[in-house]
């Protein structure tokens, strides 16, 4: 009511209310807009341009970059990409490696973090303490500390470290597979299982935020759904599949995207390392071409998966 009134009043004299409000909206985001144009959009555009410039001349100079566009004839403008995919010895290899790695670990992280979140959502003694421990990686795992810790666990410890890695390594899986005769059928499967079981450390340490997000989603499940399920005599198993999973499903997508982006942009993955070394070698054009093609692939993968997953998601509202 108030809206319509002010509209009538203000029509002749001032800007219409809607317009005025829109202007305020621009006002609120103006600071960000300026910053984004300066520190995000222009650099983004510029790095996109680097992809199509001559690598030899593209060097920092007084007052800016020395630039020279690649010619348009003969598909010359794709030279940097051609270098990345055809000439560079390690780019393609590390690209495949990273993609494979992410395809393996992402579902593991999602399942694991959902599992932990469900456990941490239950009532038991010492829950606060358990939560505090499981979110600890959120604080530490983002920095260089993680690299040192991870390195220690993997390489250095002949004494204590090795003991713990063997503790988690479990050859049992191998033996079990051999026993079942699966080993002969597929080497790949046992390799997959092995990477998953050996890397429990990485798994636990990289799923802090995901647990947090899932936990928040779990706490948003309405009590009525819980009560209805218990009245109908649902077992914990049924409850998980029929109640928990549908309610959490939007967050599964969100977590999936977060996990993928996180693992793709980690500075210690193979492609990123390659890009960074190229940057250090002043091969900016190559580095930009690599980074952009990598980014494009990631986006395509994420887009496809999002489209597929979106069909199975249950949105309460709408």
């Amino acid at each position, binding site marked *: 009511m108030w809206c319509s009134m002010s509209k009538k009043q203000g029509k002749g004299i001032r800007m219409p209310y809607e317009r005025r*409000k829109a202007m305020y909206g621009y006002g609120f985001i103006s600071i960000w807009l300026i910053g984004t144009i300066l520190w995000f959009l222009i650099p983004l555009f510029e790095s996109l341009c680097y992809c199509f410039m001559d690598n030899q001349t593209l060097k920092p100079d007084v007052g800016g970059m020395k630039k020279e566009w690649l010619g348009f004839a003969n598909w010359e403008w794709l030279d940097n990409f051609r270098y990345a995919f055809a000439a560079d010895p390690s780019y393609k290899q590390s690209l495949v490696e990273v993609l494979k790695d992410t395809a393996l670990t992402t579902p593991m992280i999602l399942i694991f973090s959902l599992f932990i979140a469900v456990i941490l959502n239950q009532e038991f003694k010492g829950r606060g303490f358990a939560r505090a421990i499981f979110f600890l990686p959120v604080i530490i795992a983002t920095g260089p500390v993680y690299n*040192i810790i991870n390195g220690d666990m993997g390489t250095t410890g002949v004494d204590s470290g090795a003991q713990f890695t063997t503790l988690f390594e479990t050859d049992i899986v191998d033996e079990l597979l051999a026993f079942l005769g699966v080993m002969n059928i597929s080497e790949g499967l046992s390799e997959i299982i092995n990477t998953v079981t050996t890397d429990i450390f990485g798994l636990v*340490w990289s799923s802090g935020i995901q647990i947090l997000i899932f936990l928040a989603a779990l706490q948003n499940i309405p009590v009525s759904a819980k009560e209805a399920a218990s009245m109908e005599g649902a077992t914990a198993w049924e409850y998980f599949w029929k109640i928990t999973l549908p309610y959490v499903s939007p967050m599964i997508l969100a977590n999936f995207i977060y996990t993928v982006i996180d693992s793709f942009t980690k500075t210690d993955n193979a492609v990123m390392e390659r890009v960074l070394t190229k940057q250090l070698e002043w091969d900016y054009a190559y580095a930009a071409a690599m980074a952009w093609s990598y980014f494009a692939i990631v986006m395509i993968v994420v887009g496809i998966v999002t489209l597929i997953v979106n069909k199975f998601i249950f949105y309460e509202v709408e």
Partner: protein
Amino acid sequence: MDQDKNLLDKLKRIEQEANQMDAQAANESAATADAAPQTDAAPITETPVTPEIPAEAPAPAVEPEQIPATLEESREEKSVAPVEAQETAEPEPTIAEEVTEEPTEAAVSMSTPDRPHSDRIPDCAKPDVHEEKNVGEGMTKKEAMKIRMQSMNKQEIAYLRRKMIFEKCWPVFRFLILFGLGFVILTPLMFMLSYAFRDSKDMNDPTVMWIPRNFTLTVMKQTIDAMGLTNGFFDNNPLVNTLFLNIGCSICQVITCALTGYGFARFKFKGRNLLFGIVVLMIVVPTQIISIPLYMTFKNFMFGAINLIDSMWAMYLPAMTANGIRAGLMIFIFRQFFRGLPKELEDAAYLDGCGPFKTFLKVMVPNAGSSFLTVFLFSIVWYWNDYYVSSAFFTNTKTIALVLKNLDTTLNLAIFNNANAQVSVREKIVWLEAGCLISITPMLILYACLQKHFTEGIERSGLVG
């Protein structure tokens, strides 16, 4: 259609029941002399009746124990048993006669024949309950459960048994899982504590595992020196630099991101979706892609007039314009949060004559306190841990994360007197762990004090929903 179907179903059921009743009656007539078989038969007649009661009236809060208790009594006072059984058996034929009646009416009519003192179901159920209570009181929980089990069919018993087993076992499993995984998380921290305070030669001693044999503080001291934490206040001390950068940038970023998030959440303007798409792009695009052009921008700031590289401005300027580290995520969180607040709050403020900005300051910000704190804490953690962005813009200015990243070379220089010394990591690990410990301690303290805001703030900050 549905009604017809229901009727058909009902007829079928009643037929079945009638058959059952016939068998029952035969049983009864045979057992008038001996009451014992009667009690055995009773559960069968009991089961079809019990479901009717809750449907008819909520009043007979027949605590499940009470129904079997009826049986209990019937067993004790054997002379009464046949009467009881008849009572329950008799109503069924009445339903068969009045198929067209509503089920409720059928239930009512079923209670009438043998109970003159009560014509409504709740009343007919109540007396039993009261009488039986005395019997039920004497029982232990186990006994009551046993009796209850007798009135259940096989599936129910199986369900209860499974549930019981699950409830008994689950806490044990849960403890094992949590303990094991918690151990995985805490191991590196325990390593740090254990390594940082031992002498380097302990590392070559296979008998030393957790508790150092040669306890020393020299490693810590050496590391602190090597990291430059003992420098003067203005002498490029990493801790001072980091704190200055950290807190300042975080405050700037939280304020600007909150403004932006509010703008996106509550105002409709042209191109809003497109602009918000840019925010999402900010989350998705890795910093590595834009770092070099950004470096050039800062190096030739104001058309080459000012060189901002190695000055704090290179970090402060983006933070002040909501473009710092992970700013996209923060804008997203704030937008979600503000969208979740009731619109009436603002309308009230508008009515009272507040402008949008004043409304934001006076109404929305106080309501968003916890969200502000959460985002601020995360921002501090991100700035503290960041080394990529700072390594791109800083050459001489040191931050804790940068120092830690280069600790390897620094250590070589400081302790082994040679930057390129080929010292195996095993020998250096003591210092490295000490460095880790030093650099995470402030964050750990912060986390320990404000743990609630970290973990529970996320949901309040509106990341979900």
